[in-house]
């Protein structure tokens, strides 16, 4: 395969901390291999900035394998960049053309305050999980997995929902900053399994209450979240969340 080097212009959001106002800063990056990942391209830029005595650009990353949910970045008007069903760490520079100007912004939502530059605090998602995204199991020996039969369709749908890596692209893409695709994946994942049944009602009510406390918006079913999701979580999960909520709310004591 042909190997190309790219010269690019970057417009990167720089912000010292949560209490300061940020602004776009322009950078030129040259001789970028199109086989590099997007984050490696930023690494190259940061190395250059360090050498020249400038503060490197802060951005989140961890596994760089597309499975941990740490990377973010709103690239040219789309969470995780131009490719479909892809995380920023798995976005490669062959997605761009020589001479392109790339605009890089952080996730924008009041519920995800900026920590520095392109890094935002996604602790709100952790607190939503803490409110009910678990099953309570007493300690002791694990039971035989085969003792609990599970319908294959439900197991598959549950697994598809459990694919959510909690990166926050759904919130970033939504015009309402709604976290309902994330929440619906977490609720559906457990609502479809017998292990989730004992806490089924309290889970959805508590998680929705925590989501509202965190300051996310309401879903208007535009579908932007589903289109931006790197793990292709279906918007049908939001309809399931609504059903779970209605059922739990109407039958609660």
């Amino acid at each position, binding site marked *: 395969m042909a190997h190309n080097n790219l010269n690019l212009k970057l417009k990167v959001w720089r912000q010292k901390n949560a209490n300061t106002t940020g602004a776009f800063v322009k950078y030129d990056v040259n001789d970028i291999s199109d086989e590099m990942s997007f984050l490696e391209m930023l690494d190259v830029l940061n190395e250059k900035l360090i050498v020249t005595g400038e503060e490197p650009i802060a951005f989140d990353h961890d596994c760089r394998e597309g499975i941990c949910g740490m990377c973010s970045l709103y690239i040219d008007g789309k969470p995780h960049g131009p490719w479909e069903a892809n995380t920023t760490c798995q976005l490669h520079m062959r997605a761009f053309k020589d001479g392109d100007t790339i605009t890089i912004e952080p996730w924008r939502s009041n519920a995800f305050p900026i920590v520095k530059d392109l890094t935002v605090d996604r602790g709100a998602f952790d607190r939503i999980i803490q409110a009910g995204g678990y099953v309570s199991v007493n300690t002791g020996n694990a039971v035989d997995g085969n003792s609990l039969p599970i319908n294959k369709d439900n197991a598959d749908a549950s697994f598809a929902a459990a694919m959510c890596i909690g990166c926050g692209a759904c919130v970033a893409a939504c015009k*309402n900053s709604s976290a309902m695709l994330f929440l619906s994946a977490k609720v559906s994942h457990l609502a479809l399994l017998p292990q989730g049944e004992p806490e089924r009602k309290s889970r959805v009510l508590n998680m929705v*209450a925590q989501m509202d406390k965190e300051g996310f*918006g309401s879903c208007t079913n535009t*579908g932007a979240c589903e289109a931006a999701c790197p793990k292709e979580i279906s918007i*049908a999960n939001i309809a399931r969340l609504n*059903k779970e*909520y209605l059922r739990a709310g109407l039958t*609660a004591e």
Partner: protein
Amino acid sequence: MTFKQMFTSSVGKKLIMGFTGIFLVLFLVVHAGLNACIWAMDGGVMFNRAGHFMGSNVVPRILEVGLFFFIFLHIIQGYMLTLQNRSKRAVGYAVNYSKGSKWYSRSMAILGTILLMFFVIHWKHFWVPSRITGVEEIKLPNGVEVHNLYAVMQETFQNIWVVVFYVVSCISLAYHLAHGFQSAFKTIGVHNKRYHAMISCIGYGFAIIIPLAFAMMPISFYLHWVN
């Protein structure tokens, strides 16, 4: 959990939008069906009789109270949700994400505002004269005296600008329904793939047929297709 807590959460507010939206969809069927009587080609006898029934029978009058309640609940809740949702992103993006969703799905508040302006003018044209200020009476073949709303329609739709405004409003209604119909069912919890495909199909059909029927009414009078 109280009902107040349930219907004031982010999901609960949407449930109100969904349920009131479905009620309004049902109302549109009744309204379009009754108005279709103008095409009976009988000089408005059937239309005026239908209008008299709706105005004099107790069941539609009770439903009318519910209609006004639900329509204002839908409007007020819609504006409240739009304002609340907009406030959740204090700093916007330099490049907006528009590829993942349809423009009309993102513009429900604007489409709804056009419809609200339409309602005010529509009520002034027909509801206020019929219920408050009075309409010229006409005697039906069976001897019953009724409001001649057919004549009011004939007169109103001689003005080209009124006709244009009604048609533009019907286009807004079509796009509002194209998103709203299927979204309402998702909101009240229909997630089954089979039903969802069916509802999407019916929703798009409904969003074309009902606004088209409404738009043809002023056009029919303006072009003298009905007399």
